[in-house]
């Protein structure tokens, strides 16, 4: 689980859990104002500053439909819901999270309710040398529908964030979750996201990780009910010394479940990325379709990407495949653009943006996408400046090629 990670560099003594007497509602933190403006209409908006819920608003339609968004302590005073999806903490960071958790956010959609506009949960971390422990729970009732946009951002502070997200899609629910990680260049994130998908539910999670010094996220999806499906998408793009670290689990517990994972990453400068993923198919889970694809573009000699797909299959009536690749920009694609007169750096910018488009185009909260796309373009523009200045050698040769692709299939 920690292989290739940067955990040995972490010194917890550098950080203190953030404590504030009483969080005051100062409205929208300046750093989040542009995010709010871009999102436009939302069914509910929650602001979380340094791990503390400072602002909650829910529109009238959602309130009238019984949608609950707010502090868990107010909506679930007995605290029976907390950790209902994640279960017990699995490691020391989970225990830390549980011990220092200030306030969890709950989004609860009643049975049969379709929430028209996205629910936005916006996190802002600006306390230097702080450790914060945000916690989000989404409970989508039977046959309900909701899209949740979770945005984590910070100015350039030295901070540690331990986010935990619990997503529960009730029977036949349509729950779609999008997470944008736009933390400052010195922030560390050690996150965990667990989803549980019940009978016939359609679940989707998408992560866009562009920020942080070290941004780690464990993403686990449990396909717990017959006929449920889970889509897992990610885009990550590191520059300078950034590192993005994703660990995924597609856990098929029930029969006739489907999961489809597509993670696409790029590394430039001296940045690094890790993807390790597991498809687990339990003995009882017959008739499963499970797919896992991880593709990475390596844009400089000094950058490094690791991709490790895994399968663990206990039932032979399954269709299962995994594929992973790490390599430079496709030479034929670049030649095509260059043959039309597009200079190499611009050609690579267009191709990398196009590479990510396959995921960005599918995000459940389209209003959030242009800004994410713009940030990716800004990173590529910084690379072009570096290339012009001769700071960074591009990768024009030395194809590393496919790490591996494998298909496993059996059964009727």
């Amino acid at each position, binding site marked *: 689980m920690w292989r290739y990670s940067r955990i040995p560099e972490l010194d917890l003594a550098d950080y203190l859990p953030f404590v504030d007497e009483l969080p005051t509602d100062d409205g929208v933190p300046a750093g989040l104002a542009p995010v709010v403006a871009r999102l436009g209409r939302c069914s509910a908006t929650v602001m979380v500053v340094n791990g503390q819920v400072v602002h909650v608003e829910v529109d009238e339609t959602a309130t009238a439909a019984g949608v609950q968004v707010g502090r868990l302590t107010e909506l679930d005073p007995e605290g029976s819901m907390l950790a209902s999806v994640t279960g017990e903490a699995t490691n020391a960071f989970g225990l830390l999270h549980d011990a220092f958790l200030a306030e969890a956010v709950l989004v609860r959609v009643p049975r049969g309710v379709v929430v028209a506009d996205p629910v936005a949960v916006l996190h802002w971390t600006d306390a230097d040398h702080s450790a914060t422990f945000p916690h989000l729970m989404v409970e989508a009732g039977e046959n309900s529908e909701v899209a949740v946009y979770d945005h984590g951002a910070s100015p350039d502070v030295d901070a540690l964030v331990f986010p935990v997200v619990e997503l529960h899609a009730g029977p036949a629910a349509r729950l779609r979750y999008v997470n944008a990680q736009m933390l400052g260049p010195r922030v560390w994130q050690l996150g965990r996201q667990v989803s549980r998908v019940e009978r016939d539910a359609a679940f989707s999670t998408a992560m866009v990780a562009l920020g942080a010094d070290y941004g780690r996220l464990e993403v686990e999806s449990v396909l717990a009910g017959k006929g449920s499906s889970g889509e897992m998408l990610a885009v990550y793009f590191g520059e300078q010394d950034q590192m993005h670290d994703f660990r995924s689990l597609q856990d098929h517990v029930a029969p006739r479940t489907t999961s489809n994972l597509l993670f696409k990453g790029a590394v430039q400068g001296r940045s690094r990325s890790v993807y390790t993923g597991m498809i687990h198919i339990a003995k009882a889970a017959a008739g499963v379709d499970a797919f896992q694809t991880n593709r990475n573009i390596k844009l400089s000699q000094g950058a490094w990407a690791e991709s490790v797909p895994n399968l663990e299959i206990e039932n032979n009536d399954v269709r299962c495949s995994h594929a992973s690749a790490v390599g430079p920009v496709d030479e034929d*694609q670049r030649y095509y653009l260059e043959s039309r007169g597009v200079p190499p750096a611009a050609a690579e910018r267009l191709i990398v943006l196009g590479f990510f488009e396959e995921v960005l185009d599918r995000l459940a909260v389209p209003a959030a996408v242009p800004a994410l796309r713009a940030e990716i373009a800004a990173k590529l523009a910084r690379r072009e400046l570096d290339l012009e200045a001769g700071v960074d050698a591009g990768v024009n040769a030395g194809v590393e090629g496919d790490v591996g692709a494998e298909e496993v299939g059996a059964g009727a």
Partner: protein
Amino acid sequence: MRSGEVHAVMGPNGSGKSTLAHVVMGRPGYHVVAGAITLDGADLLAMAPWQRAAAGLFSAMQYPTEVPGVALADMLEEALVAVGRGGGDVAARMRTEAERIGFDERFLARPLNVDLSGGEKKRNETLQLGVLQPSIAILDEVDSGLDIDALRLVARRVEAETEERGLGVLAITHYRRLLTELRPDQVHVLSKGRIVASGGSELADQLETTGYAGYAETDGAEPEGEGPGVATAP
């Protein structure tokens, strides 16, 4: 080749027609061992492919590459910016060109060559030629995959470029049909990497009946020492 001229290159499979196109454009993987390629006196072999394009060369590919997620308009805009012709209304020019060759406008929004049929890809290449306005164009089997009506439109579009702007064309083809619309000034027969015959359009007519059999005989032994160098006459 001079401006405004159309040169047809014909020859059996494997004779080196596409290799010629690739080498002139600068596709990676080819090593020129002899000869020179110049455009208005500039040494193309010393240039990267994008610089050759910026110098006025265009190569319509036999098998255009699919580039997922990249819009045609974005690519053309970048190419025009690189030669100081950016900032215009690329979309409008694309629509005008599309109309001239009967290219369905809804294809303009698709990622480059993705989900396009063979014929649509060839029209897409021709459309790009129209927007980029090169001075010399290589068309590598631009006629393959096109139906008769589309072939006529594409050939007429290229022919118009030769007449209106003096575009010079090197058209690689297997079929005389292209050459009835796009009238060649010269026809060359390529065999084993060498031009073994050149003539007027009557040469294409003759090939139609005799095939390449006669030219294979004149081909003789493999060239010794230096490989099949690629060169254009001044």
